[in-house]
């Protein structure tokens, strides 16, 4: 029968696995040390010589991996530390007596500090607990004034001061932080009384069925999941129940009445059995459901580290895991077990020995049709084993059993093999992350990779990513980015070497942001390196913010323009505008036409005057002229308009644009003219175009003035004739029209006269002009007045085929019968010719 190998000890329903022999060399063990170990096999922090309070000997802060390999060590120079603790992301928190919390990274590098508030610093910290919740890592403090202050998430600190506990005269005998109903609460014991403190109230509670002998609760602990609570009374009884204090699970007498050093839950998820571990000097007692306790001797000062599925016990020399034996393992390894998994393991063993018994065992399983169950058990058990040899044996047995199953899904087996490979790698002494399979699943690969990266184990992290086939973007690329960020901080290597190394390593990785790496380089004071790295960034847009930060404005501007992203250009331009003096700013824009034109656009809306300055700087007189013209028609006051136009004229002359200058001068003259007339004749004119002005003048009968404009502004004859013709017709001033028509030969011919009269339904007047129309337009004119005969006459006279056809098409067969005949004849002759 397979028994556990030397390093695993069975303790009733529990087992104790030796994880590591500690690599550290502690003279006094853990005595007189303040110890904090992070869950999920995280690092361990020690503050040595903490209790000796002499100013000459400073305490030493040391950080080790779970296997006891040193990560950092430095003398503690700040205030008195009350408590050490780790955050969910493996940062070390040191809570000082004055309520200041210092945050260090895994490597002992100082990150930041924050305060727990004035009240705490005044009344000093009495006790502290660091806890984890779905919202992150929290800190709870009991102050000298016997009040609790709480921060649920240290990354987003919101301090809460909890209500007062009634009747509390001295420090409570024990307390713990609970997370219930999405809220962090504090459970306090004052003698035999229990209170729950939340944001608003202090509620007294009584645990159901607590034995009456107890006069005081001396210790309490909450399970990893915050679901269960254990209380130790001064009578030596351990009460276990749910943390909402509604249900009692069991009560066990330890028969020891001295207060313990530490107490922790030791329970795996979904397990039915409650069990807690209580530690005294040199003694560990496991209490469970039954009256019997398991006692266990400790050689050395130890620390309990509660985990999701057990408790780790760290002593000066050893690191062990105490946990409930997982179901699958128990089934298989229990003495004389007849569970399918056990039989399969046996069958495989016999098979290796080439014994026929293998077949017997197999048949026995198959008869009960439990083979797939057997395989499943073996795979699961393998996951819970720490010894690679045991894992292998179980997996081989599973694989053997699988051969006799036709359609057993392979996923579970395959992924377990992969997981175990990764777990064995990270459990290695040199890495020192003793994760169980259950913890690994809870923590996820992502987080594991993060932790490896944090420990600078880049090659291992990349191996893990590749092995588990993590998508490149979240896996390898991410690790490489972290590596590069670390690399650029190495002061001893030259910029060229680092830039080259980074580019070579990262060359074919997808989704790498060089700008992030460059930012890191810049933050560690290596501007030149940062610029070099930015060159590798394919998206020029990403380079800009950092370049700005590094005050490389010209480069930033040209990169922004290169990116084609107008928004980015604006960002840079606006930054420069505030950063540089006006002259330099303009000079810089001058060399970047794209930026300049964008800035001009912005100015058009926001800063008209700046726009003018810009044009001035460039001696762009043409644009300046345009600018003044634009300004002029926005202005309501005539004087201002004329003044602005005068400026425009000057600019246009400077730009050698005589045409625009003359036109603008004309406009000024026109404006003055309009103004004069407006005053004299009370007619709305200012702002009209020349044409509109003349139209208005003609329509109110100011012919003289219109004529004056016509002469002054060298209005082409044609335009004026059209204008006057229309205006007179509009007024139906036929007499004036006739006079006008006779003043001289019409430059637009007389057809328009005809048409305009017809338009105003005056055939009589129209006919007057028909005779004056040129021969080419005669037909049209006759048709316009509806004189078919005349049209026909003209067409025939001109012997123009198409004109004859036009007239023909307008004739109606009934009334113009004769005419049509004539036309047809003429057409025939015209065609002949």
């Amino acid at each position: 029968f397979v028994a556990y190998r030397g390093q695993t000890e069975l303790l009733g329903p529990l087992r104790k696995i030796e994880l590591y022999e500690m690599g550290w060399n502690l003279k006094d063990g853990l005595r007189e040390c303040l110890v904090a170990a992070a869950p999920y096999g995280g690092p361990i922090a020690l503050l040595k010589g903490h209790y000796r309070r002499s100013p000459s000997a400073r305490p030493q802060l040391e950080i080790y991996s779970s296997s006891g390999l040193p990560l950092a060590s430095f003398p503690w120079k700040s205030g008195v530390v009350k408590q050490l603790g780790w955050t969910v992301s493996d940062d070390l928190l040191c809570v000082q007596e004055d309520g200041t919390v210092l945050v260090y990274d895994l490597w002992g590098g100082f990150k930041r500090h924050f305060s727990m508030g004035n009240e705490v610093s005044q009344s000093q910290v009495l006790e502290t607990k660091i806890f984890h919740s779905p919202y992150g890592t929290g800190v709870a403090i009991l102050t000298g004034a016997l009040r609790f202050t709480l921060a649920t998430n240290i990354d987003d600190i919101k301090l809460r001061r909890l209500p007062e506990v009634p009747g509390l005269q001295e420090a409570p005998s024990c307390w713990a932080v609970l997370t219930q109903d999405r809220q962090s609460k504090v459970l306090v014991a004052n003698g035999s009384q229990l209170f729950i403190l939340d944001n608003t109230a202090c509620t007294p509670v009584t645990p159901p069925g607590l034995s009456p002998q107890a006069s005081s609760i001396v210790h309490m602990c909450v399970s990893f999941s915050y679901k269960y609570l254990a209380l130790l009374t001064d009578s030596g009884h351990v009460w276990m129940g749910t943390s909402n204090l509604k249900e009692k699970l069991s009560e066990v007498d330890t028969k020891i009445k001295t207060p313990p050093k530490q107490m922790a839950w030791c329970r795996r998820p979904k397990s039915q059995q409650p069990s807690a571990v209580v530690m005294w000097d040199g003694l560990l007692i496991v209490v469970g459901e039954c009256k019997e306790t398991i006692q266990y001797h400790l050689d050395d000062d130890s620390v309990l580290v509660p985990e999701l599925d057990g408790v780790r016990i760290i002593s000066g020399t050893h690191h062990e895991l105490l946990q409930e034996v997982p179901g699958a393992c128990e089934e298989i390894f229990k003495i004389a077990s007849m569970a399918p998994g056990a039989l399969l393991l046996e069958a495989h063993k016999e098979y290796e020995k080439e014994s026929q018994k293998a077949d017997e065992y197999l048949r026995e399983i198959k008869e009960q049709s439990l083979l797939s169950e057997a395989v499943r058990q073996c795979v699961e058990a393998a996951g819970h084993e720490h010894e690679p040899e045991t894992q292998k044996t179980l997996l081989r047995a599973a694989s053997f059993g699988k051969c006799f199953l036709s359609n057993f899904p392979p996923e579970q087996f395959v992924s377990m093999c992969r997981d175990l490979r990764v777990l064995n790698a990270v459990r290695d002494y040199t890495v020192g992350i003793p994760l169980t399979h259950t913890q690994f699943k809870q923590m996820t690969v992502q987080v594991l990779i993060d932790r490896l990266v944090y420990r600078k184990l880049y090659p291992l992290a990349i191996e893990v990513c590749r092995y588990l086939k993590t998508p490149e973007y979240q896996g390898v690329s991410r690790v490489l980015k972290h590596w590069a960020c670390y690399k650029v901080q190495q002061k001893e290597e030259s910029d060229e070497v680092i830039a080259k190394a980074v580019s070579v390593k990262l060359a074919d990785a997808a989704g790498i942001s060089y700008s992030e790496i460059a930012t890191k380089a810049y933050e560690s004071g290596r501007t030149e390196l940062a610029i070099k790295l930015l060159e590798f960034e394919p998206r020029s847009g990403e380079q800009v913010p950092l370049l700005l930060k590094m005050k490389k404005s010209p480069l930033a501007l040209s990169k922004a323009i290169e990116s084609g992203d107008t928004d980015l250009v604006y960002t840079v331009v606006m930054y420069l505008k505030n950063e540089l003096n006006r002259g330099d700013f303009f000079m810089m824009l001058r060399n970047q036409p794209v930026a300049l034109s964008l800035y001009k656009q912005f100015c058009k809306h926001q800063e008209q005057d700046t726009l003018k300055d810009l044009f001035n700087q460039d001696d762009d007189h043409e644009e300046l002229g345009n600018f003044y013209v634009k300004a002029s028609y926005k202005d309501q006051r005539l004087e201002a308009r004329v003044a602005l136009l005068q400026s425009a004229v000057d600019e246009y002359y400077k730009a050698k644009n005589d045409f625009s200058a003359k036109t603008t001068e004309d406009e000024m003259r026109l404006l003055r003219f309009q103004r004069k007339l407006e005053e004299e004749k009370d007619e709305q004119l200012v702002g009209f175009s020349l044409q509109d002005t003349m139209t208005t003048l003609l329509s109110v009968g100011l012919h003289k003035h219109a004529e004056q404009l016509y002469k002054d502004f060298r209005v082409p004859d044609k335009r004026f004739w059209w204008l006057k013709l229309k205006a007179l017709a509009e007024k139906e001033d036929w007499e004036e029209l006739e006079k006008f028509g006779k003043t001289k030969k019409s430059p637009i011919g007389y057809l328009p006269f005809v048409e305009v009269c017809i338009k105003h339904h005056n055939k009589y007047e129209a006919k007057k002009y028909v005779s004056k129309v040129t021969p080419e337009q005669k037909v049209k004119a006759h048709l316009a007045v509806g004189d078919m005969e005349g049209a026909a006459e003209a067409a025939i006279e001109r012997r123009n085929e198409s004109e004859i056809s036009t007239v023909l098409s307008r004739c109606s067969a009934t009334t113009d019968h004769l005419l049509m005949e004539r036309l047809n004849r003429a057409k025939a002759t015209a065609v002949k010719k």
Partner: protein
Amino acid sequence: MAHTEWKDAPGLPDFSLLKRLARDQLIFLLEQQHEVDKLYKVELKPIVSSSDQLCFLIRPRIQTVKWISDLVNADKVAGRFRRYKIIFTPQKFYACETVLEEQGVYGDVTTDEWNFYILPLDDDILSLELPEFFRDNFLEGDQRWVTTAGSALRLLQSVYGSFSKVYGIGRCAKMVYESWRELMEDGEQRTRQPEFAKVFLVDRDVDFVTPLCSQVVYEGLVDDLFRIKCGSVEFGPDVTSSDKSIKVMLNSQDKVFSEIRNEHFSNVFGFLSQKAKNLQTAYDKRRGMDIQQMKAFVADELKGLKQEHRLLSLHIGASESMMKKKTKQDFQELLKTEHSLLEGFEIRECITYIEEHINRQVSMIDSLRLLCLLSITENGLLSKDYRSLKAQYLQSYGIEHLLTFANLRQLGLLEEQQAGETLTVMESKVGKLVNDKTVGKLTDAFSSLAKKSNFRALSKRLALVPKSGEEYDLRVPRDMAYVFSGAYIPLSCKLIEQVLERDGWTGMEEVTRMLNGQEFAVTARNKTDAQRIVLVMFLGGCTFSEISALRFLGKERGTYYLKQME
């Protein structure tokens, strides 16, 4: 519609998906605002509302943001306390935030983005609805919308699968492609059956000629006369023959419209009267029906007929209104001038016509349009003409149009020939010897000697102007020229046709050189030719005539062209 012609023509992707996506996002954004009380158009005027929070949904324009800032400041002065939220669509621009900051209201306003890029206007038209794209990009040199266009393409690609081939021409097209490619590299690739085969990106400034021509296809005319906005048009009282204006959606849902939208205007009336007769016959069916049949008729057909009736009378009204405006002498002469310009004949007469057009103040826009067309087809105006026409124009419409002319020159739409100096000397010498008219002709001859017009050469090489003299039956269009009465094939559409036919730009080097190059053709990795849908994206807008021409092309080739415009 085009796809019924071809047996295995691809069905179009379902664009309502885009609408749903955008709607859901907007609802999400607005939900954070609680109840919406009333909707206002953002203008520069005080908002009379008792509500203590205001939410603005705007395009990221500096002007609009300024209005809002003024509003907030006015509230502050009045001692009113309100919460303000600005939702920018399709994205937020830094410049807008700067304005908020400079106006001192940055802290009072919260901002959000609504990534609504593409508005499906019809089964085969998508639009970004960014009227400022043209001005910003081509006039002001502001490329802010390039990334927007890139994101829109990315959105299409993520919803409808990747394209197998991308063609493009123009500076902006190239930049849009680059921005799109960068976005694609950033995000994760999704493989699915693509619904589009190819994309064609074309800058508006590659072909300025086409949008300068008067439109004669029904939908184009409706746009020219009544302005189609976001796929709908408002018909005034003269069309509805009542005293009210009616807003009508113009898309393929409108059965009458979908049949005439692509038709040359001369065919429309005949078609409509035929349709009216059919309708009458359908109505007449009910005579001699028994009760049962009548019941069925009322239940099944009457509603459809009524609907059709309503639409028909609207479109007949619209056509009448067009007839009134467009069959007049003016319009005919306008068209004649345009065609002469396109062909390059009798330029002197055209100039005279344009001058008269300006003098008589026929239409401010049309005059400019003709001037631009003249300048582009002739590679700029002679100094003499340019100055005289410009002076005329300013006299007609006011001096502020100096700026208009400056802008048009900037765009290259209306230019003055520079090299003309030496010629004018010659001209004046010759002018002393012969009379005026001959001078004009000589000048033309000289100028054509001096330089070769790009448009002329292009037109010749791509055969854009069919040989004159041949009869063109507009009822049975032979090529895309029918959208301009058979006088001109839109340059943009011809380019698209040629490139797709050749599967690239090979053999068109001469053409691209004349168009200032910047052409590209990229084949994607996963090549699937299963789908024949082509997406054409006009950067800077397109005309309905071009859409009609592409629909015609699609019908001919059994390919689907999908149009997208800014």
